């Protein structure tokens, strides 16, 4: 972290990092007037995904827990809000069109609570949170971790996506849920700017909260568990609750991301939650820097903008590019782009230090 201070006004000093952060935030807040409506929508979607990426920084970068199933929690959050919006558009006793087509005559029981907007809002956070806590507790309690955990979460993503597709009458199947008009009585088209700012505010809030969490005693212990779980156990700590909390926070952020993404994109479907998208989420964070919150958001924006650009112009090339990014980032750039920036910063510092000590002024 940079310690250099800049004098702004008489006596008021502020670190350069803060200036940079504030500048980016102001620019981002002005985006609705700077970019087209289409670009703003893309930006909003990718920022929402940035929430999930920041969660992965905590889970994977800090906790050393590689989850290949973040899509599941993304989907749970997305479907929670989508169920409500689907029901909000209907009168009493009416069914969503795809249910009528597949011959259902009553709403499935698990749809019913989501008619209530407060239940839906709570569900966005609680459903992924509870599923993640129960799942990770049962696995970590038995000291299953590392590669085993990654493989089990991948199976989770596969099972979830297959289940959604196969239960077509009650989940909308392969097409998922789409065609939303209003959220809590507000027309979604009118709410675009508001939703964008909401997403931006959440990204900023989560950024600050996670930074505080990572700097806290909890964060220190989480990193210690990552680097030597058994050593921490010998010191008298039980690592399980620490890892469960990290995984659950990651899942809740993924759920929030899923809900916001669903609002921006107007669709939630199994194509966003399966094995392939789940693992793509990991690469956003790997590219940005698995230990840097800002890097994770930047990596998410970068990869998704690249995907949007490349895959529409050259659909065949995208998978080659993505595969190559996986290989190159992991082998050559384990710290991601943020690591690159820190390295560059460190070397500038190193030169200055050297020039001070050796007296070499260049």
């Amino acid at each position, binding site marked *: 972290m940079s310690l250099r201070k800049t004098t702004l006004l008489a006596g008021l000093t502020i670190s350069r990092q803060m200036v940079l952060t504030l500048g980016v935030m102001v620019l981002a807040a002005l985006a609705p007037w700077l970019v087209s409506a289409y670009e703003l929508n893309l930006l909003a979607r990718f920022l929402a995904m940035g929430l999930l990426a920041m969660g992965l920084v905590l889970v994977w970068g800090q906790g050393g827990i590689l989850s290949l199933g973040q899509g599941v929690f993304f989907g749970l959050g997305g479907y929670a809000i989508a169920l409500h919006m689907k029901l909000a558009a209907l009168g009493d006793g009416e069914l969503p069109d795809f249910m009528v087509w597949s011959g259902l005559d009553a709403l499935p029981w698990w749809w019913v609570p989501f008619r209530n907007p407060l239940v839906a809002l709570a569900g966005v956070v609680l459903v992924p949170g509870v599923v993640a806590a129960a799942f990770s507790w049962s696995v970590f309690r*038995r000291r299953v971790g590392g590669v085993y955990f990654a493989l*089990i979460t991948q199976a989770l993503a596969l099972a979830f996506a297959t289940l959604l597709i196969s239960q077509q009458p009650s989940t909308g199947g392969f097409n998922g849920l789409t065609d939303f008009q209003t959220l809590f009585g507000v027309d979604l088209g009118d709410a675009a700017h508001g939703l964008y700012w909401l997403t931006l505010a959440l990204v900023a809030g989560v950024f600050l909260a996670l930074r505080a969490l990572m700097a806290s005693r909890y964060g220190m212990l989480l990193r210690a568990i990552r680097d030597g779980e058994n050593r921490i156990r010998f010191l008298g700590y039980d690592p399980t609750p620490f890892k469960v909390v990290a995984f659950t926070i990651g899942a809740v952020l993924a759920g929030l991301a899923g809900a916001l993404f669903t609002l921006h994109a107007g669709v939630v479907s199994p194509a966003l939650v399966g094995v392939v998208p789940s693992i793509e989420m990991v690469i956003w964070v790997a590219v940005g820097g698995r230990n840097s919150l800002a890097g994770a958001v930047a990596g998410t924006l970068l990869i998704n903008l690249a995907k949007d650009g490349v895959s529409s112009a050259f659909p065949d090339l995208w998978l080659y590019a993505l*595969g*190559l*990014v996986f290989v190159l980032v*992991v082998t050559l750039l384990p710290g991601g782009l943020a690591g690159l920036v820190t390295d560059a910063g460190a070397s500038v510092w190193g030169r200055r230090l050297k020039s001070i000590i050796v007296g070499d002024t260049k």
Partner: protein
Amino acid sequence: MSEWPLIAGQVFNGFSVASLYVLAAMGLALSFGLMRVINMAHGEMLMLGGYLAYLTLQVVPGPLGIIVAMPVAFLGAAAVGAVLESTLIRRLSTRPLDTLLATWGVSLILQQAARNIFGAIGVDVRAPEWLNHAWTVPSGLFEGLTIPATRLFILIVAFAVMGALSLFLARSRIGLLVRAVNQDRGMAAATGINVRAVDLSVFCLGTGIAGLAGVVLALLGPVTPNVGQSYVVPAFLVVVLGGLGSLKGTAIASLIVGLFSALVQILVDVSLAQVLLLLFVIGFIQFRPQGVVAVRSRALDN
């Protein structure tokens, strides 16, 4: 009418699915046990085996094509495995989770390459005449039970590969070295064993077996660019269930997974069976977190 033929049929089905899983998972378990790396491109080695079988049958049509295809697929996949190990996995040997991600990148590239070369729809490998049989039990308790020859053939291949592999590991010179490195990598290196070469040969052996598995897969359905993906996730679960790269554990776990999926499918549909299988695995590790065959170790960190 009794339910016995149905249940017996599903049990046989379970064994035949298990034989596929054991072929798909054995290579994974080998390299995981020795090097602690999971090769996410393993499914693409199955795919490669399938396409090599298709190409071989273009060159060598007739009844023996499938027999010729097996060594071709084995060598082809092993060669690709050698390239993968020596260029990528070797560099990442101390970071297993990163190996997992990097090899996933390789798998994306291989899938897209297959799509560009062979098309997205997939190609068919016709089973030879001598495999186009099916035996039906004419009477008795299991009346109506049908056993197709292809399934039986796959079962035989799986048993043969398992037998050859355990014989190879137990009796051959290389097997001795592999076991030594497996037990204590540092000590093995100190006694002058070329640990790198052992890693490379085990990895090639693993991908070669996956190529072989691809040939028998091709007998059951079309070879598509994502054919590997559908087998590799259950194969991963087999590795988790089997325990630290133990071959015996892999075989038992394949049987458990195969029989569980087949028998559960009597009651529920395929997708629900997948969810139940996952719940079963999570339940199972509550009792045996180290897998079916636990390798005891006194090391501080495994």
